[in-house]
């Protein structure tokens, strides 16, 4: 029972693959955070898993069945996609947007029924946005809109979620709100593949990680085993410290970049007036 990627090679141009010989697997109900610099192929990997991009070689299977052999609706019942926040062409309400997640469970000419509306309502309640049901997606904040997309994915009732940088372009507070909801969801039975630009989120999620590096290298495993200061330096090209900070009888792990000192401009003594 797993989503398995074996020897995956894919890309857009014939001679220049973006991903080469990638192997990893995501067990049912498990969480994996995907880390890596821009342009390393995180989004390309997601496109391949979602069936938007045909793999050049290698295979992607769910419970032993190749996704290439699955129909669109069948695949959508197995994997739900949470895209990065984007503008919507029309101002659908939150309720209407979440209800769209029921599409893979309905036939082409079928209309959503009351049980689909109930599933959508349940998904909105899980994400804490049921009070926004009648608002349009253009009226709500970016963080709330991300919750709407996650709720739509929940309404699909999939085995796996694929989330492409769910906290990108959100402000500080909304990043935390969305991350907290995602942590709640990790308790469920659904497997999750989450890409992020912020390595400290992998420490917060305490999940397995897949670190993709330039030059087609990658490593995967439990975050504590894989994420070392050297590896982060190798991946992102910056000095990083990973520390455990005691707080309220617990240890909080955090990962910070060491940023070059900027001189004395901000020393408080010098701004006396």
């Amino acid at each position, binding site marked *: 029972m797993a989503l398995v990627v074996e020897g995956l090679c894919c890309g857009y141009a014939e001679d220049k693959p973006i991903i080469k010989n990638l192997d990893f697997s995501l067990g049912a109900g498990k969480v994996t955070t995907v880390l890596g610099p821009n342009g390393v192929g995180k989004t390309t990997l997601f*496109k391949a898993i*979602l*069936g*938007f991009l045909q793999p050049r070689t290698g295979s992607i299977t769910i419970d032993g069945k190749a996704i290439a052999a699955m129909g*669109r*609706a*069948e*695949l*959508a*019942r197995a*994997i*739900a*996609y949470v*895209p990065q926040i*984007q*503008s*919507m*062409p*029309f*101002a*659908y*309400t939150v309720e*209407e947007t979440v209800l*769209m*997640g029921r*599409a*893979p469970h309905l036939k*082409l*000419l079928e*209309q*959503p029924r009351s049980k689909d509306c109930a599933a959508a309502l349940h998904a909105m309640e899980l994400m804490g946005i049921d009070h926004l049901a009648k*608002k*349009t997606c*253009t*009226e709500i904040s970016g963080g709330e809109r991300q919750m709407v997309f996650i709720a*739509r994915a929940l309404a*699909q009732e999939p085995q796996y979620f694929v989330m492409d940088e769910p906290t990108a372009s959100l402000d500080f507070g909304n990043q935390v709100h969305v991350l907290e909801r995602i942590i709640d969801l990790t308790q469920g039975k659904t497997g999750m593949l989450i890409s992020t630009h912020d390595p400290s989120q992998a420490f917060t999620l305490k999940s397995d990680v897949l670190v993709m590096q330039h030059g087609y290298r990658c490593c995967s495993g439990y975050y504590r085993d894989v994420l070392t200061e050297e590896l982060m330096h190798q991946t992102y090209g910056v000095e990083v410290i990973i520390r455990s900070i005691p707080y309220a009888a617990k240890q909080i792990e955090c990962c910070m970049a060491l940023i070059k000192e900027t001189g004395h401009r901000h020393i408080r003594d010098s701004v006396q007036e």
Partner: protein
Amino acid sequence: MPQAERATGQRQAKSAVRLGGYGLLALALLALAVATVSLAVGRFSIDVPLLLSTLVQSPSAIGHLIRGEALGNEELVVFKMRLPRILAALIIGGAMGMAGAAFQGMFRNPMVSPDLLGATWGAGFGAACAMLFSLPMAVITGSAFLGGLVAVLLTYIFSSTLGRGSANITTLVLTGVVISALFQALISITKYVADPYSQLPGITFFLMGGLSGITWNDIAFILAPVLAGSVVLYSLRWRINILSLDDDESRSLGMDTQKVRILVIVCATLISAVCVAVSGMIGWVGLVIPHLMRMVFGPDYRRLLPASFLAGALYLVLMDDIARGMFSMEIPIGILTALVGAPVFLFLLFRYKGGWR
């Protein structure tokens, strides 16, 4: 343009009254009432009591009409001249409204319509070609459909190739303009080579757009294709919501996006082209009506699609009343809808500050 997007979004949200099923029912009843009253409008004056007494006689009058027997004056005017015309206005207005709404959802863009995509010009060329060879009505209809389909597919293929898959508003509208111009030139060629005495007047009046020549035969011709296209579009109404999302999103929701898109293009083009074949170029309905309905019923196609059909029907009956009753001489209805539609389009451009998204 995230800021512009937010601004229009907020304005849209404020004006969204979001009527539901009762709104649709009210719209249907209003269209029916206006259509009934319209039977009294025109040069031959019929007052309300006379209209009512004529309508009471309708079963026997229709019997006479079918058997080709003589009718009284007001029966002749109501059942042979005005009723087919009003029915045609209802069907054609509804079809144009629905096709426009479907195109707008499919192209993720509230600024497109059958005219802007070139569908009506392509259909006009197809019909004019068939008229050039004095072919029967069925061939004219089929040829209009083919012409419309070719024009829309050309617009779609060129704009999505230029926009690398994502058809953005500017490339789409510009491509539509180019394709429309191409078909207008082709129409000019058919007019140029047409026989100036026997064919040219017919083609010219046809292109101006009008319902004055509509007979029961024409209605018989358009009813089946319009019904078939509308029923398929109506059954797909919820899927058009999903089609209006980004391609990756709609595919991740388990939809065969390409297949549904082609189905919507074929149906929307079918119903608009068939109408062009009998009524000529009645423009702008497919742009203005769905947009107004989106303000009232919201963008969900489960309500927007039927609302656009009903409002389009109502609008065209009203326009036809003005065309027939306002002046001593009848005005071609295509001119009227353009006079109303062009300012509304300008208003939309101002509202969205010349762009969308």
